[in-house]
């Protein structure tokens, strides 16, 4: 987060705390009922435990960034208690800060990617996404035809310039004229289900949050529930998000996903090591997206998708360290950013190695 924003947020902080205290006292009784109805029971997890309910204090908590250290501690304690009760296992919610001198970056070799979708499901296992209704997956893999698939040899000589009574238009029609080739989202298949991958004549491109340097989602959020941390990762305060989905509209990478209903997260599959801005269980009606596994990467660990990739197509590291894998890729390979024309300056690079 840039300095100006921090200052701006700090200014708002003092005013906010006082007024919220007042509002809290006024509304406690009337809202208690509302909150109780807002969290319906779930079969898989233990929602009968009274500790599993959202408390009034949690309902009235402010933006996490604007909280005092004491408030942060309380918020974390509340969440740990609630999650531990709900999922029946000791859950930790970390709020560890991003390390200094680090700018996280990612590089992905679409020459190597085989489209096995292991990263997709590794991410689901790590980040406590809703498993079904709604199914939330932070990574989406596009399958795209290589250049040679749409061109057929018997059509080679079938193309001709379009004729008119004034002569040729110079516009080619027929034959292979209007066949796509290569990198094109227009012909991408997102729901391919082949027996074995990689399919001949196709290549694959996984897309997740590109952690833009100029994120349109952050600009669009009316309450700044989503913001960029100083390591360059765009995060969301799930307790502050109002669910208006303007960020989802703004994102040119289809990277943001919404909890349309109460997330279905089986207790036995729940990952109890969580981060406040990362993989802690979400609630209904809030946005979520890839955080580069903030609960791992802030502690020095690699993201789950990278560890799952069987072909080593994924590289993660510190963009400020010239010896990091990512910087080595940037230095030696031909990289590109997806949808460069969107003017978002992602820190997610694709290359063909």
């Amino acid at each position: 987060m840039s300095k100006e924003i921090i200052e701006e947020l700090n200014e708002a902080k003092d005013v906010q705390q006082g007024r919220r205290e007042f509002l809290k006292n006024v509304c406690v009784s009337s809202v208690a009922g509302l909150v109780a109805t807002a969290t319906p029971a779930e079969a898989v997890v233990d929602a009968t435990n009274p500790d599993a309910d959202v408390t009034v204090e949690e309902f009235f908590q402010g933006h996490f960034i604007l909280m005092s250290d004491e408030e942060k501690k309380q918020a974390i304690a509340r969440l740990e208690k609630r999650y531990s009760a709900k999922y029946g296992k000791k859950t930790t919610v970390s709020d560890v800060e991003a390390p200094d001198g680090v700018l996280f970056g990612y590089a992905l070799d679409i020459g190597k990617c085989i489209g096995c979708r292991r990263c997709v499901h590794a991410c689901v296992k790590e980040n406590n996404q809703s498993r079904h209704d709604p199914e939330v997956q932070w990574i989406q893999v596009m399958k795209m035809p290589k250049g040679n698939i749409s061109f057929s040899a018997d059509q080679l000589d079938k193309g001709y310039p379009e004729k008119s009574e004034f002569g040729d238009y110079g516009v080619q029609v027929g034959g292979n004229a209007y066949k796509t080739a290569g990198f094109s989202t227009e012909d991408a298949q997102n729901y391919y289900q082949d027996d074995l991958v990689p399919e001949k004549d196709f290549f694959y491109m996984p897309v997740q949050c590109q952690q833009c340097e100029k994120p349109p989602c952050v600009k669009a959020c009316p309450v700044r529930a989503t913001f960029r941390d100083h390591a360059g990762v765009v995060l969301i305060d799930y307790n502050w998000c109002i669910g208006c989905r303007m960020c989802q509209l703004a994102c040119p990478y289809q990277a943001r996903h919404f909890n349309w209903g109460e997330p279905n997260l089986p207790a036995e599959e729940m990952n109890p090591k969580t981060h406040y801005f990362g993989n802690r269980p979400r609630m209904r009606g809030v946005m979520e997206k890839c955080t580069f596994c903030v609960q791992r990467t802030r502690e020095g660990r690699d993201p789950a998708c990278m560890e799952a990739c069987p072909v080593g197509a994924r590289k993660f590291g510190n963009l400020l360290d010239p010896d990091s894998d990512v910087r080595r890729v940037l230095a030696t390979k031909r990289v590109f950013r997806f949808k460069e024309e969107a003017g978002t300056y992602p820190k997610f690079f694709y290359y063909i190695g």
Partner: protein
Amino acid sequence: MKTALSFAMDFGSYAIKGGSKYYAWLLFLAFFILVGSYTAYQQLTEGLILTGATDQVTMESFFANFIFTAHIAAAAVLVVAPGYLYHRKDMKELAVLGEIVAMVFVATGITFILFHMGRPDRTWHMIPGIGFLNFPNSMLSFDTIVLNVYLFLNLFGVVYILYKKYNGTFHEKEMSRWFTAIVFLAIGWGPLIHIVTAFVLASNSRISPWDTAVLPFAFLTMAGASGPALIVLIFLLIRKTTKLVIGDPVIDLMTTIIAWSLGILMLVFAAEIFTVLYSGTEHAASMKFSMFGHNGLNMFVPWFWVIMGALVGSFAALLFRKVRHSYNLLLPLVCFVVFAAILLEKPMILVFPAFSPSPLGEYTEYHVTLVEFFNVLLVWALGFLFLTLILKGAIGILTGEVRHDKSSASSQVGA
């Protein structure tokens, strides 16, 4: 204070009195409110998963209807403006009706947004001071401000005029300067809510059909057509069923505005369609999807052509003097077609197909669910219920049936 109380009492008691048809209408609305309350409860407890919205098509019917209510609310200015800007006396007397329409439909639009939100219980996060409003970065924060200010401008204007008239202290010539200033502000603010709403959409460059400079113009012209269409319908109904006098010239002015707006709208559509289709870049994909479908996905295609046909047809019809002056049959019919076409244009052309292709090349159809449909009807029914009641009361005051002197006596008798 006492006067204010009796104003509210008289206004309310007049508003709920009416003939059997009036009650049938209220009952009709009440039915949808009743049903809608159940579906709204379902949606509030289970979430937007009960709507047809997905991560691919993230905006549901509530958002589409919100845009339409902004159309109508903004267009109500067209009743106020001729009176105050061009000093048309007959219009000036009816200005308050226009402000009521604006007020009610801004409120309806805000209700739609509450239904649209995933966490309506966290709306307070937007209030500066206790929350954090991301101003001026977020276009939605502009829209929130603009809509709420417009709501309160109109609310104030309506209450002020009606209260003064109720007391018999409203004199056109002695109208205080500050009130005139507020009316002019409201007139200017009307198009503003519209332009800002268009910017909310146009700010999303990823959605190529919205990423166009003609969007505010399309919105303004559609507002100019759909809003007056509703107002013509309301005025025709009022002058048929109440003692309030609304002259033909007022209706004719509204009809002219509709015709002009539709005419300019044709140009706007033509400009957009030409610009997109001539070069045929990837930005044309979404419009092609709307017009012709994509590999067998063509649920929006009939909607596109029927709605476009209805708009062109109504424009052509309004060119005929006979239609414009057929106050009891053809004009209301055309107005209804315009209203319905632009209402349906919102979800079926503007919003749903705009999400295909998605940034990753997905094409997605949208199926409105039952719960969503009844929630939309609930909000509309609430809007029309309040519109009916407030208009009814206002007519009582405008016609002089509800007055302070007379009513204070009667209320004493009642007590």
